[in-house]
C-alpha cells in the first residue's frame, strides 16, 4: 500500500451516521443500552471498550445483521433501520475476513460489483483499482488460502471498498495479525481512509490502536457509551473513572469530601487531607484521579499540597522510572523522566507526592 497510487482514488459518497436511542437485548441480556451517537461524514471513528461490551453488536446493528428493540440507524440522512443487510450499502470488513475460499482474490473483490449488476468493463476496472489501492494486484489469481494473514486482510478491505459503500465498518481488523504487522497495517488503513475520504467505524479493544489512527472515539462499557471525544480529550478530561482507567494508567485515591464551599477538603485517611480547589467541579462520591506523569516527587507543584508516602518499589524503564508509592492504604504509581546521571530513589524511603490542581481530576464512576 505504500506504493504511489497509479489511478485516481475512487470518489466515495461520504455519509454521516446517526445512531438514535438504540436498545438491544439477547433474551434477558441487555447488551446495548440507549446508545446515541453522531458520526460525521468522512470521519475515522472508533468504538473502544473491553471485550464483551457490545461493540460488535453495535457494528452489526449498523450493518443490518442485528435488530434493535428500539431506536434507529440513520446513514446519510436516510433511516436504514428497516432495510435488510444487502440493501444497506454499508461495507463491513469481518474480524475473520470471511474471504470465500472457493473464489480467487479477483472473484472475491468482484463479488459485490457483480451483485450490483455493473457492466463487465466497469467491474474489471474497479477490481483493478481496488487491488491497486491495497497493493495486491499481482496476487489477483491466488486463492485466499495462499495468502498471508496481512494479505488476506487487505483483500477483505479491497473487497469492501470496491463497492464504494457509504460507510466502512471494520471489526477488530488487526486482531488476527502479529504485533509488528498491526502497527504497519493500522497506518495503511488510516492512509487509505484519508485518500478515500470514506466515513469509517473501527472497532477495537486496544486503546493504542484507537488513539493512533482515529479522529474520535466512543468509549463503551457494558453496553453504554461512556464518552465520545478525540483521543486527547478523552485522556485529558475523562468523563468518569472507567474512561480514565481504560485510556492510559490512572492513579485513583479514595476519600471523603468534607466541608462546604471554599473550605471543602478531601479526607483520604486520618492525617492525609487535601484541600479541594474552590473552582473544581466535584461530583458526589468523587475520587481523586491523576496520571503517573502528572505528580512530582519531593517537590511541591504550585498550588499543590504534598502527600506523604513511602517508596514501595521501583521499575527502571529506560526513558523513565516508575515508582510504586504507598500513600496511606493505597498504592499509586508515579513516572519520572530519566536522564543519564540521575540518582534513583531507593525503596523504603519516605517521600512526598504532589499533584498540581490543574492535573487533578475529580471523577465518580
Amino acid at each position, binding site marked *: 500500500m505504500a506504493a504511489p497510487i497509479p489511478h485516481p482514488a475512487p470518489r466515495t459518497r461520504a455519509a454521516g451516521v446517526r445512531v438514535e436511542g438504540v436498545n438491544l437485548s439477547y433474551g434477558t441480556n441487555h447488551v446495548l443500552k440507549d446508545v446515541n451517537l453522531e458520526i460525521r461524514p468522512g470521519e475515522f471513528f472508533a468504538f473502544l471498550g473491553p471485550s464483551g461490551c457490545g461493540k460488535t453488536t453495535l457494528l452489526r446493528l449498523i450493518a443490518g445483521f442485528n435488530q434493535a428493540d428500539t431506536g434507529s440507524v440513520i446513514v446519510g440522512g436516510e433511516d436504514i433501520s428497516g432495510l435488510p443487510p*444487502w440493501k444497506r450499502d454499508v461495507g463491513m470488513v*469481518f474480524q*475473520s475476513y470471511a474471504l470465500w475460499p*472457493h473464489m480467487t482474490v479477483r472473484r472475491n473483490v468482484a463479488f459485490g460489483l457483480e451483485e450490483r449488476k455493473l457492466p463487465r468493463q466497469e467491474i474489471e476496472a474497479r477490481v483493478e483499482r481496488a487491488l491497486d489501492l491495497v497493493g495486491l494486484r499481482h496476487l489477483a489469481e491466488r*486463492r*485466499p488460502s495462499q495468502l498471508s494473514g496481512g494479505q488476506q486482510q487487505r483483500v477483505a478491505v479491497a*473487497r469492501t471498498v470496491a463497492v464504494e459503500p457509504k460507510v466502512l465498518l471494520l471489526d477488530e481488523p488487526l486482531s488476527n495479525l502479529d504485533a509488528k504487522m498491526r502497527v504497519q497495517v493500522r497506518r495503511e488503513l488510516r492512509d487509505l481512509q484519508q485518500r478515500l475520504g470514506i466515513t469509517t467505524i473501527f472497532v477495537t479493544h486496544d486503546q493504542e490502536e484507537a488513539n493512533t489512527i482515529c479522529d474520535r472515539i466512543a468509549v463503551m462499557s457494558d453496553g453504554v457509551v461512556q464518552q465520545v471525544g478525540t483521543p486527547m480529550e478523552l485522556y485529558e478530561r475523562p468523563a468518569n473513572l472507567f474512561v480514565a482507567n481504560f485510556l492510559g494508567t490512572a492513579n485513583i485515591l479514595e476519600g471523603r469530601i468534607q466541608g462546604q464551599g471554599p473550605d471543602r477538603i478531601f479526607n483520604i485517611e486520618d492525617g492525609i487531607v487535601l484541600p479541594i480547589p474552590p473552582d473544581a467541579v466535584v461530583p458526589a462520591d468523587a475520587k481523586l484521579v491523576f496520571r503517573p506523569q502528572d505528580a512530582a516527587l519531593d517537590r511541591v507543584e504550585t498550588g499543590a499540597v504534598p502527600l506523604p508516602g513511602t517508596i514501595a518499589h521501583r521499575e527502571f524503564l529506560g526513558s523513565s522510572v516508575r515508582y510504586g508509592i504507598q500513600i496511606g492504604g493505597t498504592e499509586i504509581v508515579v513516572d519520572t523522566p530519566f536522564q543519564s546521571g540521575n540518582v534513583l530513589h531507593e525503596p523504603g524511603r519516605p517521600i512526598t507526592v504532589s499533584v498540581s490542581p490543574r492535573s487533578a481530576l475529580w471523577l465518580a464512576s
Partner: protein
Amino acid sequence: MALALSRPVPRSHLSPGQLLVAGAIAAFLLLFLVVPVATVIYVAFTEKGTGAFTLVNFLDFARTDLFVRSFWNSVYVSGMSVVWASVFALPLAYLTTRFEFRGAALIQTLGFLPLIMPPFVGAVAMQLLFGRNGTVNLLLDDWFGVKVPFMDGLNGVIFVQSVHYFPFILINLSAALRNIDRSMEEAAQNLGSSGFRLFRRVVFPLALPGYLAGASLVFVKVFDDLATPLLLNVKDMLAPQAYLRVTSIGIADPMGYVIAVVLIVASILAMWASAAAMKGRDYATVQRGGGGLAKRRLKPWESALAYGIVGLILLLVLAPHIGLFLLSIATIWSFSPFPDAFTLAHYARVFGESSIYIKNTLIYATLAGLIDVVLGTAIAYLVLRTRLVGRHWLDWAATAALAIPGVVLGIGYLRTFYGVTLPGGTPLAALWIMVVLALAIRRLPYALRACYAALQQISVSLEEAAENLGATKTRTVRRVVVPLMTGGILAGFISSFSTAAVELSATLMLVQSNSDAPLAYGLYVFMQSPAGRGAGAALGIVAVLLVALSTFASHLVVERSQRAKGAAQ
C-alpha cells in the same frame, strides 16, 4: 488415510513384540485381502487353462451384449440413485441446518433410519407399497384410474437404493452446511447478495465438498450392491451378473472375474473422481471464526410448506420400515392396499425354527467385530506411535478394502480357498469361518478409523509418564493405552458388529449350507418365496432392532467416554 500428526512421533526403540505384531497383521491382510483380490485380477487377465496373459476376456466382455447392457444399466442406476438421493437429502439438510426448525434433531435422526436396514429387505416392503399391485398404485387406480411404474425394472432398484442410501448425502451435506462460517454468508449479504443467488454463489459451493463425498459414496454402494437387484429380479446389472456367472457356470469361468475387475475399477474411479473434484476445496481449515450458518426464521406460509415437504420425504424414506412392520404381522397381504388380518405367527417362526440364523449372525458379527478392533488398535498404534518401516503399508492395505466390492471379495475367497482342502476333504472356502473373515475385512476400514481417532486423542506424555516410571512398551500399551482407548475401541466394535450383521454381498457367495447361514442370508432366502415373506419381514424387523440397538449403544459409549475425558482434563 491421510494422517495429520499433531505431535512428533516419539523416537522409540522397536521391540521384537512390535515386529511380531506387524508381521502377523501383514500376513493376515496378505492372505485374506491381497491374495484373493490379486487372484481375481490375475484370473481376469489370463487365458483359461494355459495361464498366459491375455486381454481376450475383456474383449469378450465388451462383445457380449448382456454385459455391456449390464454395465450401462449399473451406471444408469447408480447415477439416478445419486440424483434421487440428492432430491431427498437436499431439502432435509438445507431446511434443518439453515432455518429455525422445530424438530430438526428428530428429522435428522429419522433421516438416518434407512441405513440401519439392509436395502434388499426394504425392497420387498417397497414392492408391497409401490409395486404394480401395491398399496399406492391400488389407491391411485381406485381414485384416478392411473398406475405409476415406481418399481418396474430398473426404476425399482433406483427407488429402493435412493431411499436407502440418501442418508449418506444427508449426513455429509448437513455437516458441511453446519461448518460454513457464518461470516462467509454475512459478507455476501453485506455486499448486496441475498436469496437464491446467495445460496448458489456462496453457500452451496462451500458445502460442495460434503455433498460430493456423500454422492460418491452413494454411487459406489449402489454400483456394488448385489442383493437388491437380485431380489427385485433385475439380473442385467454388473454385480448380479458376476454372482450368477460364478454360481451358475462355476468358478472356472473367467467372465465373473472380468466383471469383478470392472467393479473394482469403477469403485476406484468414483472415489478418485470425488477426491479430484474436492482437491483444494476442503475449506474447513480455511474458514475461521465461529458459528455455522445463521438460522433464519420462516414466515408462517413458508413454514407450512417446509413441514409439508419434510413430512412427505420422511414418509417416503420410512415407507420400507412401515411396510416391513405391517408385513411382519400380516396374515395375507396381496392385491389389497392393506393386510387382511394380523398375526404374530411369523415372529414365533423366526424365533423358533429359524433362530439358527439369529444365533449365527450374533457369532459371526461378534467375531468379525473382535478381529477388526484388534487389528485396528494394533495398526493405529504402529502407525501413530512407532517408526516401524513400512507401517503405512498396513494402513493403506486395510483401507484399500473400501474399494473392494463384497461380490469381488466373495469370488476371490472361493477361487483362492476352494482348492485348499482340510484333512477331512472339505474345502477351506466352505467353512463358516470364511464368512467371518470376509466380514472382518469388509468392515476393517471403518473400525480402523475409530481406533485412530481414539489413539490420537491420547497425549503421548501419558505414555511417557508410564515409561518414565519403569513400564516397558508392551506393559504401557496394556496398562495405559488400551484402557484409555476403550471408548473408541468399543465404538469401533459396535459399528463393525452392526454393519456386519446385515451384510450380504460376500456372504451370499460364501455360505454353503443353511445351517451356517446368518440372518441376512436367511432373509434373502425367505424373501424369495411369497410364502416366506411374513417370516422374512419378521426376521427383517429383528435385524433392524439389532442394528438400531447397537447403534444406540455405540452412541452412548462414545458420549460417555467423551464426557469422562472432558471431566479428566
